[in-house]
């Protein structure tokens, strides 16, 4: 802006004025710190107190007569004993089963869970043979969760990493506030899926409800079926060969690759036209409008 006088600004078009004020070129500041990935830095990815488990050492927990806290404590106790494969039977829709597991484990849940199942996890591989309630996999950091039946709303809310897979259909607000990782839905998803998504990928093999990707900041959504409507600032983008290669690999991994391939998928990204993508405070905008 140096060298531009008020008088000159007044004679400029709106676009020239915005450029002269640096509004088109100024880089956003205060973004996340960039860290070079170091594959030798194993210490960053495992907790020092994580129990050493043997995946071939298997046991079962009958959750029928247990409270949620008792089930989760039993899982921790068994991991401390070195069990690497734990089967939870008869969960009967109990909430918060398997939350907060922060190291490697094969967890198999035979039945359906209630709200907040396997949330806040960082590392385990989970398979759930039944259905899951609201907020399954919320805030998960890494690992895989595969659900054989349907899931409730806010599936994978605020997920940061890992693969969260539902082979059936899910409710509304899937991946709301997701910050990374991958969510895969074999069937349909409800309204406001990907709302305020910030990073990561969501794949919906079936249809998506209204307001898909509303106010998303970043990340990518792929939809194989119909999209009822896009949300604010969500826009369609070209499905590249790279996208198709990634989709093919991921869907094949979980047995969800359609017979016709992935060429029919629609790719949705953030248009980045919302107010939060410019640097101006409202009073600054008034200067140029």
């Amino acid at each position, binding site marked *: 802006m140096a060298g531009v006088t008020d008088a000159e600004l007044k004679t400029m078009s709106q676009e020239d004025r915005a450029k002269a004020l640096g509004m088109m070129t100024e880089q956003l500041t205060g973004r996340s710190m960039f860290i070079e990935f170091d594959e030798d830095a194993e210490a960053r990815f495992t907790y020092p107190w994580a129990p050493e488990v043997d995946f071939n050492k298997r046991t079962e927990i009958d959750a029928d007569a247990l409270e949620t806290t008792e089930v989760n404590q039993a899982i921790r106790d068994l991991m401390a004993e070195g069990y690497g494969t734990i089967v939870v039977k008869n969960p009967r829709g109990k909430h918060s089963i398997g939350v907060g597991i922060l190291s490697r484990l094969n967890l198999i849940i035979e039945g359906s869970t209630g709200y907040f199942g396997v949330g806040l996890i960082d590392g385990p591989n989970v398979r759930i043979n039944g259905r899951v309630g*609201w907020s399954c996999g919320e805030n998960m950091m890494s690992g895989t969760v595969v659900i054989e039946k349907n899931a409730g709303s806010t599936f994978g809310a605020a997920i940061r990493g890992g693969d969260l897979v539902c082979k059936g259909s899910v*409710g509304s607000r899937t991946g709301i506030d997701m910050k990374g990782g991958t969510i895969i839905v074999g069937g349909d998803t409800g309204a406001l899926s990907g709302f305020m998504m910030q990073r990561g990928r969501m794949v919906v093999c079936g249809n998506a409800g209204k307001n898909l990707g509303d106010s998303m900041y970043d990340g990518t959504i792929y939809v194989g079926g119909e999209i009822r409507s896009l949300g604010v600032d969500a826009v369609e983008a070209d499905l590249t060969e790279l996208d198709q290669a990634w989709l093919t690999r991921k869907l094949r991994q979980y047995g969800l690759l359609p017979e016709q391939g992935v060429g029919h998928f629609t790719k949705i990204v953030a248009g980045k036209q919302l107010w939060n993508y410019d640097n101006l405070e409202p009073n600054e905008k008034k200067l140029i409008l």
Partner: protein
Amino acid sequence: MCGIAGLIHRGRTSNVGGEMTSMLQSLKHRGPDSTGFAVYGAGSPGDYVMRVKVAEQEDMSRGRGIHQVIEERISALDGVLAEHKAAVKDSGRVTPYALRYVLSHGGDTEEMARHIEEIEGVEILSLGNGLELIKDLGDAGEVAGQYGLDAFAGTHAIGHTRMATESDVDIRSAHPYWAFPYNDVSVVHNGQITNYWIMRREMERKGHRFMSSCDSELLAVYVAHHMAKGDTLETTMRRSIEEIDGVFTYLVATKDQLGMAKDTMAAKPLVLYESDDLIAMASEEVAIRAILPQEIDTTDPYDEEVRVWQA
């Protein structure tokens, strides 16, 4: 946060009182303040079952004078029934403040109901051929035990566990609501209705009465209004999605139907199980598991979804 539940058996009767008790007991954590049931039995042709309360539970701790007041109210109630030539075939006092009547009445039941509710402190909880509406403070086990619901045979039922957020903890504000004066129609709701006062004034201008300041009562009045005009339950519920603002999931039961509706945001939960002979739904899966321990498939209805099932 409240808990709602519903179930309907197709073509057969079952112990819907006991089943609904199990479902609501498992939803106790969603609302410990009060519990309510609307259960639908076979009834007997031509007879009405009327559930009525003549005081609030909390009134009973306000001195011995309340007992005299209650007797006076019951006496006045019996007088109104006689005045309207309603033959009382059976009556009983389930609690000191809750009564059940079986009536034969050939006249205008709406006029009789309005006359009854002119008695101070008296509120009809339900009036119909098959509907029996029970609600009180306490959890499902306590209320069901108190009112003998554990073995109520019928085709369908809806229920509610309430966490009071916008009105009092009393029977008046507890669910279900009877859709006065529409026989056999009851409503349970989980959510908040944000244009409650606008819609309430509109309904009041059309002559409807409100007994509480609970927003859920609006749904019962709204349903009664439109069904009285001849709309079907499904049409009425679809219209409600357009006209009622807020976040809500609600269930409506009629003499032989059960319906569900979700708002445009799908912000309030409902889990649904459907089979050829039973449909069950609840705010949480754990309630359905309380009556169906075997592995089953369930789904979450989507935004703006309306479904109606026939008994």
